[in-house]
Each structure stands twice: as C-alpha cells, then as structure tokens.
C-alpha cells in the first residue's frame, strides 16, 4: 500500500535494528541495567506490539508504555457521568469507538446502549454535529476525550455549532493535556526513564517548544516520532545517538507531519474554546494539576457539564490494581498480580486492559506468548 508499506520495509528495519545493537553496546547498558525509553502515546504502544518490535530489540533496551492512551486513563467516575447523560430521555450520546467499552462502576456505554440508551459511535465530532442538525428535537452530546490530538476537532465543532446557532449540540469535555502528564512522570520518585519516544500527533498540534523543559531541566532526550515501525526504530536510534554523545535534546523524527511550531489554527481554536482545569483525576495516576481542560464560560450553552448533572463522581481504582506502577514503568504489565487472570480484555479491572492501546491489553493480545512465559517464569521463581 502506497505511503504505508514504505515505512514497514523489513530490509530497512534490519539495518535499523543492527544500528540499535551497535549504539546500545556503546552506551554500556545491559540486560541487568537496561535503558528505559518511554513511548508516551498509545498509538506507539499499538504499533510496537502490532509489529512485534519489542522482542526484536536488544535486552539492553526496555520500552515503558506510557500514559498516552486516553481511554485507559479515563476514571470510572467520568464513565458513570457519561452513562447518566446517555440515559437522559431525548439524548443521543456520541463518542469514539473504543471509549464505549471502558467500564464504569455501573457498566460501560456499550452496556447502557444495550439497555436502551441511544449511544452511537462516530469517527469525528463533526458527525455528532450532523446528527444534531438532522435531529433538532434531540439533544446530541459528544463525549470529547484525548490529548491535544483530538482537542482541536472538538474545539472546531463547538465553534461551528456556535456559528450555525445549533442549540441542541453539546460537548462533554474530558480532554487532557500532555505536558503536565509527562512532568508528573518525571517528578515521580521511582522514575527511571532515560528518554522519551515523543507523541507524534500531539506534537503536530502543539509543536516542539513545550517539550524543552524535559531536556533543559530533567536532562532527558525526547524525539518526536511517527507511528510506523520504521519511524519508531529510527527514533530509538536517535535517542541512543543522543545518549552516546551525552546530549539531551528535543529532536523531530516525524518531520513529514510535525512542524516546528505546531498548528497555529488548531492552537487558536483550542484556546478560544477551552481553559485549564485546576486538576484532573486520572485512572492509575491520581489527580494531576492542570492536566485537563474544560470549556470556557462563553461556551456554556454548548457545555454538557452545564446542561446536565455531572457530579464528577470520584470512584477509587480497585485496590489491587497496579495500573499506576505500570504507567510509570515501575513494573511490567505481567508483573501485576491481576494480569491475565482476574484482569483480562473481556473483564478489565484496570484501565490499561481496556483499549488495544493500553499496555496491559497490548501485552495480553499481542505479546501474549512472551508475557505469559515471563509470568510463568516469575511464578516459578517466586514459589
């Protein structure tokens, strides 16, 4: 397939793997003391597993699967709010596909749909706006979630609704921002990340400047990466080169998509419609200051938080769930006590088992052979 197969070429991949081996040896990292690279974005996690990249990397490199799966970090209380809105008579509740499966304390949106709520999957908030145009007697709510990648389309849709005077559309805004999240990980006392595989599509919106503190203050390299396997391998090469050279810089591997300064129109729409929340509650990571956005008061008539009773219910993660440690790279998914037994993609306990971008689910589904073997090994050595 044109413009995709070129980035999946096994011959080029072999050359990159060889270069990675060579550079990794120069860093002095070993199986016992590996380098930890975190891919922040769930899209990267998905590609890494889909192409089986992790097991082809040398033992001296460990990938830590970060918090960038917006579905995974969604707290139960917000899912409960969604279900409550969706059950309100007259409402058509719309959202992205895999948000529909996230369990709340009382079931998922898919479960609510089966019980009669009008829940529909859309590919874009503009599709939700079109539903609002076609159903003027119904209130159409779009559940907006995700990082800066999906934020602009939510913002533009609200601006479009305002321009057309569509009164029966509202946004349930649960967008999150990437920078405070990376900062929280860097500030965590058990942090052991040596470099970041930077989010590609988020950077397409925000550009590269916001990451500078990572290099300047924390002395960690970050390379903005594309999502094809060769992109990811080249990114690892670039990170290793920085480490070998003793550099910590922000670099851009994904220059075919990500401009230095980001997308001014998208940033403009975001700042017109949204403002930072004091804090946002994350599944697995807890409450992080300024890590989420809400709608500005000027857009209250399009704000589902104003139109509906959303109580921001706070429901604690299950005690035995170790999603937080997995997110920070402290443990591997298969080291969690619940992995694969109590917590499975059919019955996810923790958020990371929900979406195919979640590292536990990805391990379970894609790297299953290895993860199950490692788990069995861990069990044998423990007994």
């Amino acid at each position, binding site marked *: 397939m044109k413009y995709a197969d070129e980035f*999946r070429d096994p011959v080029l991949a072999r050359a990159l793997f060889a270069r990675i081996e060579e550079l990794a040896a120069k860093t002095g990292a070993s199986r016992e003391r590996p380098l930890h690279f975190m891919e922040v974005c769930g899209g990267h996690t*998905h590609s890494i597993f889909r*192409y089986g990249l992790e097991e*082809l990397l040398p033992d001296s490199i460990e990938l830590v699967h970060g918090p960038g799966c917006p579905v995974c970090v969604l707290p139960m209380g917000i899912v409960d709010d969604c279900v409550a809105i969706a059950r309100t008579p007259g409402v058509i509740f719309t959202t*992205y596909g895999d948000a529909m*499966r996230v369990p709340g304390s009382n079931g998922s949106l898919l479960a609510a749909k089966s019980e009669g709520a009008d829940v529909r999957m859309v590919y874009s908030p503009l599709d939700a706006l079109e539903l609002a145009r076609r159903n003027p007697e119904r209130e159409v709510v779009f559940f907006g979630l995700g990082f800066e990648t999906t934020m602009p389309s939510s913002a533009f849709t609200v601006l479009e609704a305002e321009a057309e005077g569509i009164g029966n559309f509202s946004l349930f805004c649960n967008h999150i921002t990437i920078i405070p999240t990376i900062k929280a990980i860097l500030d965590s006392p058990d942090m052991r990340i040596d470099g970041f595989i930077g989010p590609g599509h988020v950077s397409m919106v925000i550009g590269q400047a916001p990451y500078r503190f990572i290099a300047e203050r924390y002395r960690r390299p970050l390379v903005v990466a594309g999502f094809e396997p060769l992109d990811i391998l080249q990114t690892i090469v670039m990170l290793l080169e920085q480490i070998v050279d003793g550099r910590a810089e922000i670099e851009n591997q994904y220059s075919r998509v990500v401009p230095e300064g980001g997308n001014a129109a998208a940033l403009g729409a975001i700042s017109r419609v949204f403002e930072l929340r004091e804090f946002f509650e994350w599944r697995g990571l807890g409450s992080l200051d300024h890590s989420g956005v809400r709608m500005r008061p000027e857009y209250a008539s399009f704000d589902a938080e104003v139109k509906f009773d959303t109580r921001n219910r706070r429901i604690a993660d299950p005690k035995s769930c170790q999603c937080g440690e997995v997110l920070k790279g402290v443990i591997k998914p298969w080291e969690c006590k619940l992995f694969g037994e109590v917590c499975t993609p059919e019955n996810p306990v923790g958020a990371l088992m929900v979406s195919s971008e979640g590292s536990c689910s990805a391990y379970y589904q894609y790297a299953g*052979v290895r993860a199950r073997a490692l788990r069995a090994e861990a069990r044998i050595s423990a007994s």
Partner: protein
Amino acid sequence: MKDRPDTGAPNAPRRRGGKLQVKSVTLAHGGGGKAMRDLIDDVFVSAFDNPEIGDMEDQARLMHAALREPGAQLAFTTDSFVVSPIEFPGGDIGKIAVCGTVNDLAVGGAIPLWLSAAVIIEEGTEVELLRKVARSMRRAADEAGVHIVTGDTKVVERGSADGLFVTTSGVGVIPPGRKLNAGRVRPGDVAIVNGVLGDHGAAILAARGDMALSTEVESDCAPLNALMEAVIAAAPDVRCARDATRGGLASALNEIAEAAGVGIEIDETALPLRPEVKGVCEILGLDPLYLANEGTLVLFVPSDQAEAALAAMRALEVGRDAVAIGRATDRNPGSVVMTTLFGGGRIIDMLVGEQLPRIC
C-alpha cells in the same frame, strides 16, 4: 411454503407470478389470508421454483441417492442473517443467506442438497426489494446446486425489525469415509486460505456510508461447495475446513487451535490482502484478520498434500488466489501466533466483543 392454506388441489397447475400488486409490504401480508398467499407465491415460490417446493405441503419431502449409501451421514445446519445494508457491493442478504448455509455444510465435507428459508419482513419493506432478494437467493442456490424446498414468512410492525431478516437451514449428505474435523489437525499440517481476506467486512463498512469512504471492494460472498469437493478429491486427507465469517480468519484459526490442542503459526507476509482492504483498515483502525468474509475458508492439510490442494483450489475461480499462510505446530498449544513482517511474534487472539476503532 407451509403457511399457505390448503387449496384442496395440490397437484393443480398454479399461476405464481404477477399476483401481488402493492408496492410495499403491510401487516396484512403476514395475516395468513390471501395477501400472504400472494406474497409467498408471487415473490418466493415463483423465484425458488423446484420439484420439492411445488407440492406445497406443510413440509418438503426429500429423496436422494446419496442417502442410501451405507455409512453416509446427514449434515444439518442453520444460520440467521441480519446484514445491514440489505444490498451491498457484491451481493445482498439473500445471496449471503444461501452461501453462508451452503458453506457451513461444505466445510464439514457435506454435499449440500436442500435449504429452508424463513424471512422476517418489516412492515413497509418494498416488494421490489423482496423480489430482488428472492431472485438472488435462487441464483446462489443454482450456483451451489441446491434447492430451497421449504420456508416461512412473517411480517412484523415497523421498527420491530431492520427491513429484512433471513434464516436459512440446510441439509446435506457427508459421503461415507469423510471425517473432516478440527480435532484432527496435527503439528506440521499446512494452513491454506482460498483467497483474499476481509473483502466482505470492508465492503459492508463502506456500504453503510457512515464513514464517507468510497472503495471498489466487493463482498467475496460465494458458495464454496465445489471448491471443497475439488480439495477433497485432490487432498483426500484434508483435516478440516472452517469458513472465516464473523470474527474473520483470527476466530476460525483460534477455534481450530483450541479444538486440536495445537499451536498455529501464520506468516504476516503470506496473508492475501487487497490494498483497498488494507487501506480501509488503516483509516478506520481495524484489523483485517478480524474482518468478516463470506466466501473465504481456511483449511488444514497434511504437508505432503498441500501442493495438490493448492493446485485444485487455484483451478477454480473462488480459489484463484489460494495460498498457504502457515502451519500447525506443537508450540503454544491452543494459541495462534503470527510472525510479523519483521520476524517478531504476535498472538492473534479471539476478538473480545465487537471490533471497535481506536481513538487515535
């Protein structure tokens, strides 16, 4: 068809076309009276026309020489079809309903003979659509060499069904000595598919129109009984076959791995995929291994018969793109593992629930 009241003259020649004058179906067409008889005769019986349906008793009465063979087994299967949209590139609900049931028989080594067709019609459905569906069922039945010998119609209120639901059951005969069974797959056996994967699923997604996607992909919907006969003749020890319908190739392989207690290893580079289907999957965040097929099967043969099976399949239109995609092993029993483009391994698990696209 059995809802038709007894006319008292079972063998009298009857005119079956041209009775139905209305444009769309009403509840009266399900009421058991003349309107219903007209619908059944004019739309269905006239399209299906065959010796077994002609008697119009409450049951079809069937004879076949293959049944007299000592050791012959009856094969019996049923399936319901609720596809939306009713018509799509490459077929419609009628074609799928016939092919699906024919294929469920064929993959077990049965020679499909007779089908029933039960139709649930939503009030307001256009008669012309029903005629098209019935004609398409007949065409598919002719292609597969089966007769639709009995059936039923029901009409439900608007909103109680989505246009048209069709249930077909099928009866076939498994000749003596044939033992196709997933449990017989052994390490070393070769996995073969008869053609490209995911066409049906991709065609349906595009035809639904929610995505503003336009593609030339057509459903692969086709009867596979002739293909199975050709394979059995060329590779008599073929272990088993499964049609890769709902849940796609991934589900079919997982069922086989579990039943046989073997591992199955497939090679990503060997999987036959149309660039258009890959494109649809890339855009929508779906995995073609889980997309539905309606004319694609996977079968396992001993390795020394793989070439013969492939050659026999490739001689037929429905097997033109037949290719070996992997083999059974004694590693990871019960699991399906795919070697990726780069040589990494990836578990291909059963789908959990519906395949939902990722956010970004």
